[in-house]
């Protein structure tokens, strides 16, 4: 009888492991446009056989899954905890996952979120260790703690030191701005351009025709002759030249109405070179309320055909990409449309490059 029970137990355990393996494999194969959806739906019933002991393995599955797969895994963990109870979360294993920087950021922050839900005190005790974390969401929690602590200090010099320390660690725009605001109030001026690493020096050429917004898809010569930034090009009303253009705006905003005037149904190109010390995976961070396209080293990174839906924001679009060692060519096409309302005057963009944690890469020409 005892033997039978042991065999039954082992069979159940093995079945649970197999089923979690099958499900995770299906989740890891989830692709865009619904690819792999039916397979996961088919395997999903296996979640009912899982217990809290499967949660660490599910979380680690996020290391190979995409963002959609991550949400499937979150759903599986919620379902398991609904059945077995929040307090069954294997805390020690979860903490190990959070602390292991080899795990993907989504894995670690999801582990933190579940820990925070079941054992908030334990989770909160980890936050001071996050101030240099490569996962922006965790780092943000650590930085917030620094900002909160700095705001409680009474002595001015201590406050300045604490806010400067927080500013050095902050990567999210709102936290950087909060630290700067506090430092300004304490009499310290901060160069946000430098702190955030905006690229401020460009060559620009325009205007090209964008009547009826058709210029967005039209390929003008600067797009095909990337090394032509010393040549003249045929613009909307004759031959036009590249010109130097820079900004001292505190958030790196380049107002294209300045070099070209307040004109409508036009577009221009902005070009710069970025020297990277080594090949690296980076994020290109662009803000613009106009339609735009971004190329890096002749590769189209992203294009957005939308005008004046809200204001230009720093880090409005965060795009994954790669820099090669040495000179990198960056070309941005910025379009202005036909609208005449007062809120459609802006023709502008801001741009910076960071690593995947949000740390700015400093510009050198």
């Amino acid at each position: 009888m005892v033997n039978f029970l042991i065999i039954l137990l082992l069979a159940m355990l093995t079945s649970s492991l197999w089923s979690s393996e099958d499900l995770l494999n299906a989740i890891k194969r989830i692709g865009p446009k619904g690819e792999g959806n039916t397979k996961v739906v088919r395997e999903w019933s296996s979640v009912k056989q899982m217990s809290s002991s499967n949660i660490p393995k599910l979380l680690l599955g996020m290391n190979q899954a995409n963002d959609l797969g991550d949400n499937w895994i979150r759903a599986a963990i919620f379902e398991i905890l609904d059945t077995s109870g929040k307090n069954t979360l294997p805390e020690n294993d979860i903490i190990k996952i959070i602390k292991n920087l080899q795990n993907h950021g989504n894995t670690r922050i999801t582990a933190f979120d579940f820990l925070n839900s079941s054992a908030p005190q334990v989770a909160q005790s980890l936050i001071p260790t996050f101030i240099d974390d490569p996962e922006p969401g965790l780092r943000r929690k650590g930085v917030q703690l620094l900002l909160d602590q700095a705001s409680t200090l009474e002595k001015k010099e201590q406050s300045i030191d604490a806010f400067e320390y927080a500013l050095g660690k902050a990567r999210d725009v709102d936290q950087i701005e909060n630290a700067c605001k506090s430092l300004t109030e304490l009499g310290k001026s901060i160069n946000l351009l430098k702190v955030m690493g905006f690229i401020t020096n460009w060559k620009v050429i325009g205007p090209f025709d964008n009547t009826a917004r058709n210029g967005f898809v039209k390929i003008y010569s600067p797009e095909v002759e990337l090394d032509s930034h010393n040549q003249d090009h045929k613009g909307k009303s004759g031959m036009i030249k590249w010109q130097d253009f820079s900004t001292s705006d505190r958030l790196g905003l380049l107002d294209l109405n300045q070099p070209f005037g307040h004109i409508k149904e036009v577009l221009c190109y902005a070009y710069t070179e970025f020297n990277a010390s080594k090949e690296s995976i980076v994020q290109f961070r662009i803000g613009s309320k106009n339609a735009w396209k971004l190329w890096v080293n002749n590769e189209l990174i992203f294009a957005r055909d939308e005008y004046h839906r809200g204001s230009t924001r720093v880090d409005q679009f965060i795009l994954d990409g790669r820099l090669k060692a040495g000179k990198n060519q960056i070309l941005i096409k910025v379009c202005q449309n036909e609208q005449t309302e007062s809120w459609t005057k802006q023709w502008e963009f801001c741009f910076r490059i960071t690593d995947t944690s949000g740390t700015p890469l400093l510009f050198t020409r």
Partner: protein
Amino acid sequence: MKISKLILISLLLNAFAFGDWLGFRGNNGNGFVDGQLPADLNLISSNSWKVSLPGRGLSSPIIVNNLVLLTASSGPQQKNLHILAFDIENGVIEWERVFKATGRTICHEKTCVASSTMVSNGNVVVAQFSSNDIFCLDLKGNLVWLRGLTFDYPNIANGLGMSSSPVISNGVLIAQVENDADSYTFGLNLQNGTTNWKKLRPKGANWTSPIILKDNSTEWVGLQSKTGLSFVLPSNGDEFWSYNDGASTIPSSAIAPNRSVLIPSNGITAIKKANNGAPFSQIWSNNKLSPGTGSPTVSGNQVFVVNRANVLTSASVENGEINWRLRIKGPVSASPITTDKNLILFSEEGICQIIDISNIIEAKVLNEMDFQDTILCTPAANNKSLFVRSDKSLWRVSPKSKN
């Protein structure tokens, strides 16, 4: 009768529990409540309750099988997507799911990522967010499937935020994700989330929601945009008929009696589907009935619109002639809801106004309640109670005494 037919009928009866409120503007696509909603609703009555929410939202609650369900968004850039279910009797949370946005979450500050109202067929619920993440769950909160339409097509996005609420028709989830760039409507298989069809739609920001017109056993889905209203078959997205004289991109069309549809176009334009299989024809248009942000609402032979000057107007569904006008407390973002006697309307400042609409000559304000919070969502109703939410709270408001 075959056994399979009996089972099907039994399933359908189970699926639509009496008094459920299954989507944006209820079950009728026009804000009309199938039941009573007394005028003596009171915030502090014994059956009323208020609970805190974990995040922002202007999506409406829906009510399915004694659960009040709604969405919320929280965290930096509102990337946490919450789907919540509360016990209708006491507001106790039954379950919560939190996902991460896979699409863009930037919005105008007045709106937020939890802007689209959930929809249900009585067996599953579907939540869509401004990030164009879509989740289908069963009534216990277990995931059935998910999609990330901006993950799939990165240019499905609107810099001001998206807010179209999906509908379910003939086993297909219809999601309008229309914008200036990649502008589509999707028909997703409700069983597994796969794409049944994807329809290229007019480019342009569009915050309107689809409507379902039913004629006996046939359903058509109306897709509104700046170009007008297009009726498509839910099975394949093929167009059946279209009205092409332009339409609003904020307030949505409303279903009216006798296969009529009221379109926010040139004020309000009414069209009617012939009952002989022929398509629609225009029956009237009145440019003095332009709705503001909220959609037109119907009760019997009356259509109600609130304009940008905070004037509530009643007009005849049959011919568009105006019955009465009433200045109300505004501004108003929410769509009103109606019973056969009353109209319930929220101002953005949180003033709930209950208006007697039983007399087509004159309207009368019967009751006002101050929720002391910003209310942008269209309320839901069930079994003589009203359900509404703000960024911070969800309320059930019931009559003073048990009726």
